[in-house]
């Protein structure tokens, strides 16, 4: 199944620069409908108001971290099926294990390149 690049994508990061980078990379891949949130709580609020086909979130944010957001999403029956990719500098095994336990769809370690982002999105949503 081909990826629907018209879907709404939510990117979550507390670094404005990173939001801009990911937004631009997504735009180059073909995603035009991209929203931003600067922490987990803000992302959760947006997810309850609008349906997103993909969430790409950082881990290390305050007050609500990426892993907390992921748990909230997976515990909410309406949001549970949303594909969720963690993009983070946290690269220890325990981080990846914890994210997997919480139900992450895929995991990208920063710094990353466009091909990695595209590849991980394809592995979650299907080929482009």
């Amino acid at each position, binding site marked *: 199944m081909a990826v629907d690049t018209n879907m709404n994508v939510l990117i979550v*990061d507390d*670094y*404005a*620069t*990173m939001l*801009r*980078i990911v937004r*631009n*990379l997504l735009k*180059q891949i073909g995603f035009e409908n991209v929203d931003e949130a600067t922490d987990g709580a803000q992302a959760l609020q947006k997810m309850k108001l609008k349906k997103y086909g993909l969430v790409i979130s950082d881990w*290390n944010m305050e007050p609500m971290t990426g892993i907390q957001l992921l748990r909230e999403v997976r515990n909410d029956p309406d949001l549970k099926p949303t594909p969720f990719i963690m993009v983070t*500098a946290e690269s220890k095994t325990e981080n990846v294990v914890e994210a997997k336990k919480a139900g992450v769809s895929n995991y990208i370690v*920063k*710094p*990353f*390149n*466009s091909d990695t982002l595209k590849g991980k999105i394809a592995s979650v949503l299907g080929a482009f």
Partner: protein
Amino acid sequence: MEKIRSVNDLARHINEAAKIENTPPRLEDLGRTVGALTTAWPNNRGIYDQLKRLADFIERTKAEIAAIRPDDVKREHLPKATDELDAIVEATAGATNRIMDAAEVFTELSNRMTPEDADKAMNAVTSIYEACSFQDITGQRITKVVKTLKVIEARLEQMVSSSGLEGMAPAPRLTAVPEGDAALLNGPALPGAGHNQDDIDALLASFDN
């Protein structure tokens, strides 16, 4: 502290000290106790010598802690280091945004290029975006360093408190204060702390008046 004149005085002193539970011994108190003990047994050379060595060790330790000038480190050096690190994050964020502004202009211009050139241009722009993610990593690393500095600050405070050096006159500086031309080298100023080009031009112009 009372002077210890006999074994009974010593026993009473130890008993009283033992009543203060959960209070870590302060270097200053230990030093005074050892000093009192050396006075109590001036003729017993074995005990006296050992206590004297202990007293000397405590004094040396106090002097070494004072030589670090913990108050200076806490009030001046650590906040300055933190400010410098914050300035790095701010400067790299500013530079990254400018680079991305330029890359976005380039993306728009690529619409007017031949498909082949546009492809090349977009590959270059993608590389620029990817490289710009260094700023996020740099910021996170610097945040870790700032947290470590906070831990050092807390430990210093604990060390000063347990050594009984609070309020004491600081020891002389171990590092020489730069003089002459060396004193002019301060590196880049923090935002707002130095002069900008307009200030410099105005200053230079003021010499001509």
